[in-house]
């Protein structure tokens, strides 16, 4: 059982600076997910923790011991690779036994551990097969098995589900979650899929261009994103953004854009105070928009024209336009509407986000 600490971690490949001043404290038994678009430095960070990539500057600690110079084999970690990295010339049992043999475990102990892992993962039937005789999902299980038998301090996952088809991915996601509950080993998981990040992580680290954008529990990221990038990256369908100008008058603050004038709720208005005339970005999630009813105050409503109607069964996604801003709204499946209809949408004022136009940080 282990804590992983990362202090001021940097990585440069020649001239490209791919990981920038990453600071992170991962608690014992915690499941932390690194998420971000490709090239954001998440995999490089993971590989530095694994010891596969040299650290340019900063420190990595496992259980309060600096491991910067410790080779991967002595870090007591296990890693599941994106392409599984199973040894093609060894059987499933051979793949799982390899790490234990290298560590000079007794034969009986090796067999016991393989059996336990095979039972957990349901691959007892496959032990004598070669990796090429397995399906993608089965290979994934073997790769997990190879990590489990080691009983390591830390599990590292590098996009382990990205090669599976959509249905299998959802299934494996659930199994990974169960597995973590059962084994309770500190885990670091890298993915570009925000749904995986939200569902698996105890905490999620959002990265972009080598910088950590925000660290927090999934709902924290969803409800209170620190900046425009996190707001747009977390949540599906993505948050709507509109470029607005802030204006004040008669004790009220407004966010204005062509075809749009929204009265800002008091808590935001207080924070915005003194920014009269400033540019900002307004963000609102599709699920925080609804068809305006009589109870909705006029200052939270705006007129839109429907451009696309996406029937998803459980909900309808409306792609709409107001002036030069577009909004996707998630509305009740019972709504009857069609393209070019004009509707009035209302905003849930407690769920309105405002971002600085320059720094993109939340206001």
């Amino acid at each position, binding site marked *: 059982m282990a804590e992983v600490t990362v202090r001021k971690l940097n990585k440069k490949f020649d001239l490209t600076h791919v990981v920038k001043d990453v600071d992170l404290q991962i608690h014992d038994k915690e499941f932390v997910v690194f998420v971000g678009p490709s090239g954001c430095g998440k995999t490089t960070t993971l590989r530095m923790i*694994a*010891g*596969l990539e040299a650290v340019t500057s900063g420190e990595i600690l496992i259980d309060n011991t600096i491991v910067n110079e410790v*080779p*991967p*084999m002595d*870090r007591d*970690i*296990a*890693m599941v*690779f994106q*392409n599984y*990295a199973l*040894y*093609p*010339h060894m059987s499933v049992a051979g793949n799982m036994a*390899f*790490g234990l043999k*290298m*560590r000079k475990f007794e034969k009986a102990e090796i067999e016991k551990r393989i059996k336990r892992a095979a039972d957990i993962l349901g691959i007892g039937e496959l032990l004598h097969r070669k990796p090429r005789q397995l399906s993608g999902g089965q290979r994934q299980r073997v790769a997990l098995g*190879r990590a489990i038998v*080691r009983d390591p301090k830390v599990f590292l996952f590098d996009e382990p589900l990205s090669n599976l088809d959509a249905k299998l991915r959802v299934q494996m996601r659930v199994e990974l979650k169960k597995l973590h509950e059962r084994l309770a080993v500190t885990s670091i998981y890298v993915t570009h899929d925000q749904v995986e990040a939200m569902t698996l992580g105890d905490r999620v680290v959002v990265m972009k261009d080598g910088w950590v954008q925000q660290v927090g529990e999934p709902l924290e990221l969803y409800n209170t994103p620190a900046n425009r990038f996190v707001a747009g990256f977390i949540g599906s369908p993505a948050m709507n953004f509109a470029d607005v100008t802030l204006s004040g008058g008669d004790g009220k603050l407004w966010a204005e854009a062509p075809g749009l004038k929204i009265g800002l709720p008091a808590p935001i208005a207080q924070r915005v105070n003194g920014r009269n005339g400033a540019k900002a970005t307004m963000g609102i999630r599709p699920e925080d928009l609804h068809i305006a009813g009589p109870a909705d105050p006029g200052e939270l409503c705006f007129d839109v024209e429907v451009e696309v109607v996406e029937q998803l069964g459980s909900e309808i996604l409306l792609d709409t336009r107001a002036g030069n801003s577009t909004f996707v709204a998630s509305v009740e499946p019972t709504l009857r509407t069609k393209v070019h209809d004009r509707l009035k949408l209302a905003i849930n004022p407690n769920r309105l986000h405002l971002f600085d136009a320059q720094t993109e940080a939340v206001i």
Partner: protein
Amino acid sequence: MAVTAVAGAEARPIPRPRRLEDERWLALALLMPTAILLGLFIAYPFFEGVLLSLTSQRVGVPGEFVGLKNFVKIWNDSIFRTTVWNTFWYTGVTTVFKLALGLWLAMLLNRHFKGKALVRAFILLPFIIPTVLSTFAWKWMFDPTFSVINWTLYQLGFITQRINWLGDPDLAMTSIIIVNIWRGVPFFAISLLAGLQTISPELNEAAAIDGARPWNRFWYVTWPLLLPVTMVVMLFSVIQTFADFQLVYVMTGGGPANATHLFATYAYQLGIGTGLLSEGAAISLAMFPFLFIIVVVQLLYIRRVETR
């Protein structure tokens, strides 16, 4: 539809199928060029050689059928026995060294370093230069009087007397072995490098995380995965080395005192040099069963390795 089709068939005469639309004729036509080339340049000379070895033909003398007399004669020929031993020794020693050095070079070249492409190209040089030319250069380096190797060893204080590289029977064999290794290493290095590059680096990383030290990573992961390529490269190299001619011909001509003859050079010396065509053919053919056995064994092994 069916009715009109039948009516149409009656109205038009059935076109005679063209020859090449028949798959058997097409297959034959496509096979022909290869079959002619193989027959003309491989099968015909081979059988002509077999026939030649069964006669007493010499240059200018048509000769007559003598059965296996030539083979009996070379069997009792002490130079031939030396030749057989030489060829096996030459092939065996050079292959071991070429494999070891080639693999070592390939592993080095498989790393990332500046000027990688240039170094890889330079490695191929011994392989690219015409063998006769590079061998002449070596011959000069082994020259009893002008040897740069002797000069260097002398200057460094390792020797006080000249080493007669090509004049001493054992040293002459060692010398041609050195040149063959020098010439053959690039082929091993480049082929094995290509093989190494098909092995995903992730496997080595996985093994490192699994706790394998560098030597274990090589022995348990890299080597088994490289084995099929290694075997094919060895097969090619063994065939080429076993039947080597140019190198020995230029360096020693089979001497001193027939000490460095291989099958090919001895066959040439007897057949063309001395004019005993039929005996030369018999020696060439004697190579066949040995090579045949080596190749069959290796191919069987390759098949086993590949289906693992």
